[in-house]
């Protein structure tokens, strides 16, 4: 028999559970690594090597995991609500591709060896160029389909550009660097990276979180949303720019980490009664939990080389995608 009713989990308890999971995952992330020591020891002996590892290596890594995970979860939920498509993901409008191309250009031109922080800066610039292209291709008043098509075009152009640079690069080590970077990782990042992306990420979050109610209105269609007082032009600008700011900055620092922005909103949607507005905050917390847990797994799985975070999230995401297909098939049958 079809399930006719929707059981929403109380938002208070949902946030308590997700917040507790996030705290546990964060503590787990700063506790796990090649060297085993207790957090207490590191905190009590500020001049020890353990303290250095905790503050300068693990803490920025965990903070970046939190920022990037929350960004991907939030931007995924916002894109799915805005495009009213459960298969939309944060990079659908070309931001991820643009940021990746910008970062790869920094590798290719050798700027990275002169000034390492050019890598995230290049990524952020790439994300902005992709937004400008999106508006040039689709126009200021574009409908959803035109936006998605323009996003596909930008992603194709960005992929072609990335491939071209990989093809032309002479230094084989640079090729390896680019390929590994593209797989996505939180390893070897510092507080410099955290502070570099923090303003972009926070600005992007604010823009996306502001739109919860507008996304709810949009679930009744564009014209009804308009009649409920929602300005569709401003909403589109905030969603596109907000996603570009936070996703672009995240990709610029951590590479492409797939599927988080797709899976997390999907898993949490029934718990928030399918409300696109309430899904935003929940997905941000859920995304941060998933990235932090995946990053713990990356460090705990015994392998010769540390697995890349993007590889782990893709390994989790692929079966989930198959599960979605099977569920859809069952519905049709």
């Amino acid at each position, binding site marked *: 028999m079809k*399930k006719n009713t929707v059981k*929403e989990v109380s938002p208070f308890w949902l946030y308590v559970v997700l917040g507790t999971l996030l705290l546990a995952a964060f503590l787990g992330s700063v506790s796990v690594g090649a060297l085993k020591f207790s957090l207490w020891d590191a905190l009590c002996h500020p001049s020890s090597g353990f303290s250095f590892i905790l503050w300068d290596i693990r803490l920025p890594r965990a903070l970046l995991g939190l920022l990037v995970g929350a960004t991907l979860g939030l931007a995924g939920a916002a894109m799915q609500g805005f495009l009213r498509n459960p298969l939309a993901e944060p990079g659908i409008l070309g931001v991820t591709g643009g940021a990746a191309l910008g970062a790869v250009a920094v590798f290719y031109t050798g700027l990275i060896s002169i000034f390492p922080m050019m890598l995230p800066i290049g990524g952020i610039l790439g994300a902005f160029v992709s937004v400008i292209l999106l508006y040039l291709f689709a126009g200021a008043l574009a409908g959803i389909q035109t936006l998605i098509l323009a996003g596909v075009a930008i992603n194709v152009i960005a992929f072609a550009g990335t491939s071209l640079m990989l093809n032309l690069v002479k230094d084989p080590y640079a090729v390896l660097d680019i390929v590994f970077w593209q797989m996505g990782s939180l390893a070897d990042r510092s507080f410099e990276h955290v502070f570099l992306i923090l303003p972009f990420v926070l600005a992007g979050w604010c823009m996306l979180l502001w739109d919860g109610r507008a996304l*709810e209105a949009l679930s*009744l*269609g564009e014209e009804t949303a308009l*009649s409920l*007082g929602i300005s569709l032009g401003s909403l589109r600008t905030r969603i596109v720019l907000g996603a570009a700011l936070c996703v672009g900055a995240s990709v610029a620092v951590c590479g492409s980490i797939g599927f988080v922005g797709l899976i997390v909103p999907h898993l949490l949607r029934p718990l928030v009664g399918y*409300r696109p507005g309430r899904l935003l905050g929940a997905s941000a917390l859920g995304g941060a939990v998933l990235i932090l847990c995946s990053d713990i797994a990356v460090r705990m799985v015994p392998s010769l080389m540390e697995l890349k975070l993007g590889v782990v999230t893709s390994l989790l995401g692929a079966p989930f995608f198959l599960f979605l297909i099977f569920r859809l098939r069952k519905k049709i049958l």
Partner: protein
Amino acid sequence: MKLIETEKLDVSLDGMTILNDVSFWIGKGEVVGLVGPNGAGKSTVLKALIGALLPDKGTIRIFGKPVREVSRRTLARKLGYLPQENEVHWPLTVERVVAFGRIPYLMPWEGLKGADQKIIRDAMRATDTFHLRHRRIDHLAGGEKALVMIARLLAGEPEIILADEPVQGLDPAHSIQVMEFLAGIAENGRSVLVVLHDLALASRFCSRVLLLHEGKIAASGSPEEVFSSENLRSSYHIEAKYGNGDDFYVLPWKRI
């Protein structure tokens, strides 16, 4: 009192003229039917009124004020719009959909207050949908869904209701029920502009009818005046049978 007034409205889409020199008004407490053949521009009139389409020429006045001078939020509180397709993109509960009617009254960070909750419950009770409040909207039958959408309109407490074919796909009983609700809303001092294809329903429930043909107002007045055999012949290319006892009605009969 004229709640809505349009003057010499021209609207075009992709260079094609859809509305040409359309002038009409709607008074307080009226149920005005907007009828006309497919492609006459009926939905375009409603879309222009809510601001989804910008007119090339002409003016729209809401409560005597040019619509450009009315803020989007104020307009949203005054006008309630029911689109042709009752689309809901997520499997939300009935209660949630009805609650969306309160959006024009809330700031982005505000939640529903006690007074809002009461208005939402009253809207569901008035439309006999309270018992469905926990049901998924996508699992409702057509008639139930149409009533939920009217509850959503009522929750917004609009003074003018613009309904685009609200009885589309409904059986006669539900069609009459929906029209009775709209007529009841008008009796409470609000106004209703309703797009209808069913001329019998239009003749039964509308105090005034506007006949749109090829983007122009071909006739306006009481149902008796507008549904004359000449008007139906020239606009719809049909002949109709009429009931002329205590209640006037028109029954489309054959094509010519």
